[in-house]
């Protein structure tokens, strides 16, 4: 009876939904509902930068028949990453000069802001603006957003603007792979980075290591002579000798993020099937990763309460040299210097290497997460928006961003820039790009990530054994992703 009633209702709704007018009205109503929901879940009544950024492109008539087009952009990052927006702003002049030389009767100006806010809030703001048809012309986000946003029709492919540009040949080819979906380019890389394993040289000296041994550590990790198990043993020694407090021998980042996939990759895990594009869960690799974290907890080198620690406390603890070995982003060194009082002497004391492999003889790993500019479907001038991004993508502009924020070069020509060459950290980290993996481009990656991160949280907190956690993750992925995930 219930089935009959349900089928009747759903059938009726299906017929109604096939009406285009009704679908439009429903879409508008749903947008309104979501906006109300988002407003309820928001964190305050302060006018957000995204509101200023929203609104789509506008244009106005200027002098002598020259029309001025206003483009709007949304970018995110720390204050040290302000060039994500400022490079676009400074590119306006370059673009306008070219337009003038071409005899075009249009000029560009840029509006919008650079936001320092949580990623999920930033993305939610963009999605709501996009569904309401008020998205900015240019959005900067992680490359993994290409998949869901392209599927939803929020962004446009950029091949026609990019392929003939000198920028196309200058960008490292692997970065184009990170924004290519279904054979089309959907974004233009803005920056990339490595996620090193950091250590304090002075700590290792206290342990009795010689300068030579310390200098050789990155190479030992690169060659596979020093593994993740060795990392835990070293962390334990640092604690046992009282160099760092208990539970602080080895730390990862304290919040969700792509860094954790480095451990999965270190145990030969695969995230995507190249043939079908489906997500892959390698149970053996995940089990090894979870067992590594369980061992870290059992040894007492990693606090069970680490995941969830406030970022500001995390930064203060690691920069206070209270943690032995820790995984962080290359960009965080700039943040530590800018906001947490890390001195030049401290930076000299900071050592960095790839994350060790899980098994001896295999090279270390890192993970790169390129941020990319995308042009939205809602832009009335996608050609100008794409050209503005390409103007902002040049060795001088990208190098000043890289040096200011400790991000790696995205252009081959940046490696020849004097400022880039002078930066010890960037020079030292450059080789890591060769060992970098990327997270997959797949519309359901967010759900895949959430299940794996929650499983890891359970292991770190000591709530589940690694085996139980893998079993739970598999069940969750099968229930949520169904045939979009291959369980191996």
């Amino acid at each position, binding site marked *: 009876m219930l089935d009959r009633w349900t089928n009747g209702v759903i059938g009726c709704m299906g017929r109604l939904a096939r009406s285009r007018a009704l679908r439009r009205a429903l879409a508008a109503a749903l947008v309104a509902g979501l906006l109300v929901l988002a407003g309820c879940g928001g964190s305050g009544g302060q006018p957000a930068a995204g509101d200023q950024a929203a609104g789509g492109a506008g244009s106005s008539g200027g002098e002598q028949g020259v029309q001025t087009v206003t483009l709007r952009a949304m970018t995110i990052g720390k204050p040290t990453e302000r060039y994500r927006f400022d490079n676009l702003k400074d590119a306006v002049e370059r673009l306008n000069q070219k337009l003038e030389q071409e005899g075009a009767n249009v000029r560009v100006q840029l509006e919008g802001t650079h936001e320092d806010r949580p990623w999920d809030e930033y993305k939610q703001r963009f999605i709501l603006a996009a569904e309401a048809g008020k998205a900015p012309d240019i959005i900067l986000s992680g490359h993994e957003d290409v998949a869901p946003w392209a*599927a939803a029709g929020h962004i446009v492919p950029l091949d026609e603007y990019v392929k003939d540009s000198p920028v196309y040949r200058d960008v490292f080819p692997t970065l184009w792979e990170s924004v290519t979906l279904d054979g089309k380019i959907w974004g233009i890389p803005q920056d990339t980075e490595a996620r090193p394993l950091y250590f304090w040289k002075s700590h290792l000296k206290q342990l009795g290591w010689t300068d030579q041994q310390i200098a050789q550590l990155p190479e030992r990790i690169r060659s596979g002579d020093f593994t993740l198990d060795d990392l835990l043993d070293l962390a334990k020694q640092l604690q046992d000798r009282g160099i760092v407090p208990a539970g602080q021998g080895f730390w990862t980042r304290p919040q969700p993020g792509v860094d954790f996939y480095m451990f999965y990759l270190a145990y030969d895990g695969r995230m995507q099937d190249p043939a079908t594009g489906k997500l892959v869960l390698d149970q053996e690799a995940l089990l090894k990763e979870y067992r590594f974290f369980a061992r870290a907890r059992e040894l007492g080198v990693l606090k069970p309460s680490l995941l969830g620690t406030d970022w500001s406390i995390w930064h203060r603890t690691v920069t206070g040299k209270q943690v032995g070995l820790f995984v962080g982003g290359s960009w965080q060194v700039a943040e530590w210097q800018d906001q947490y009082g890390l001195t030049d002497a401290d930076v000299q004391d900071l050592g960095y290497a790839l994350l060790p492999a899980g098994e001896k003889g295999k090279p270390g790993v890192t993970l790169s997460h390129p941020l990319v500019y995308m042009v939205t479907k809602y832009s009335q001038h996608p050609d100008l928006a794409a050209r503005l991004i390409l103007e902002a993508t040049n060795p001088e502009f990208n190098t000043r961003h890289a040096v200011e924020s400790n991000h790696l070069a995205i252009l081959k020509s940046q490696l020849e820039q004097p400022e880039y060459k002078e930066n010890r950290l960037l020079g030292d980290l450059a080789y890591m790009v060769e060992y970098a993996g990327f997270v997959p481009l797949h519309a359901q990656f967010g759900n895949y990530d959430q299940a794996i991160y929650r499983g890891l949280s359970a292991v770190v907190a000591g709530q589940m054994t690694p085996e139980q956690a893998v079993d739970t993750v598999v069940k969750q992925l099968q229930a949520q992703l169904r045939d979009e995930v291959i369980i191996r």
Partner: protein
Amino acid sequence: MSRVRRMVEPAAGGAGAAALAAARPAAPWCLGAGFLLPFALVVAVFFLVPAVLTVILSLTDVSVATGLRGFRWVGLENYQRVVTDPVAGLVLRNTLLYVGATLTLFNVGLALVLALATAFLPGRWGGFFRAVWLLPRITPSVVYVLMWKYFAAERPYGVINQVLAALGLPAAGNWLYEHPWPMVIAINGFVGASMGMIIFSAAIQAIPREQLIAAQVDGAGTWALVRRVVLPQLRWPALFVAAYQTLSLLASYEYILLATDGGPGFYTTEVWALYAFHTALSNYFGNAQYGLGAALATVLVLIGLVASVLYLRFFNFRQLTQQPRIEVS
């Protein structure tokens, strides 16, 4: 002449008077409808329409990846996913624990204690303490939770651990992560207790003084006074506070979101409303599932309705709201 006056003034004879007499029974209905219309509109626009939209959304696979234009109708598939979700049972247990403990210990329990305690204080002091207990409610939630976070943080940042260390006691780690449930319940409870406190205080003050004096004359001590005279008269306010706060707690997640974000570990403090929020509107990599989130929200509405019915039956709502049989002057 206003329409209201025309309705109530007697007409001056003839056919007009007969017509008016015939129309008279409809007048109060029109007047009532006129007054109710603005409220009915508000209820429809802000309560009914979102509820209907949520149910409609829950029958689709709408998500970031489909956009609001490319979704499919999937019938009850989302509800099927909720039922078979390996995490749903844990989240439901968390919700029952959170609502039950916060309601019992703070929203009704502590509120009642505070109301009784302040009732026995001189008027000005009672008012002062009630005002102090309102502070958490008027503090912005982000600031309030941030305060708790620094209160509970590990050494050397946390206030609790600094105090323990100063007293020579062993300091713990982060209290919020080592004892998440007591902390989450306390964070919410300190805000929620103030509402019940005010309602119970008002109810206590409304008890005729003669009853209290008579009981004292009959030899009742303070405890007997509270148990035999005050508490029986608080049944109706207690029903209201319990029912209202149950529904509020079922739907509230903002303090948990800010304090633990459902952690630490495996959905340790994830309650149903937060699970719906995470699913529908907040995903680190952006693919929020609006349809599935709406199904979760709809289930929450159903749980709320069931809880309301149970409350009304348990407290015998009909008897509580009927006209008093004896008028005491």
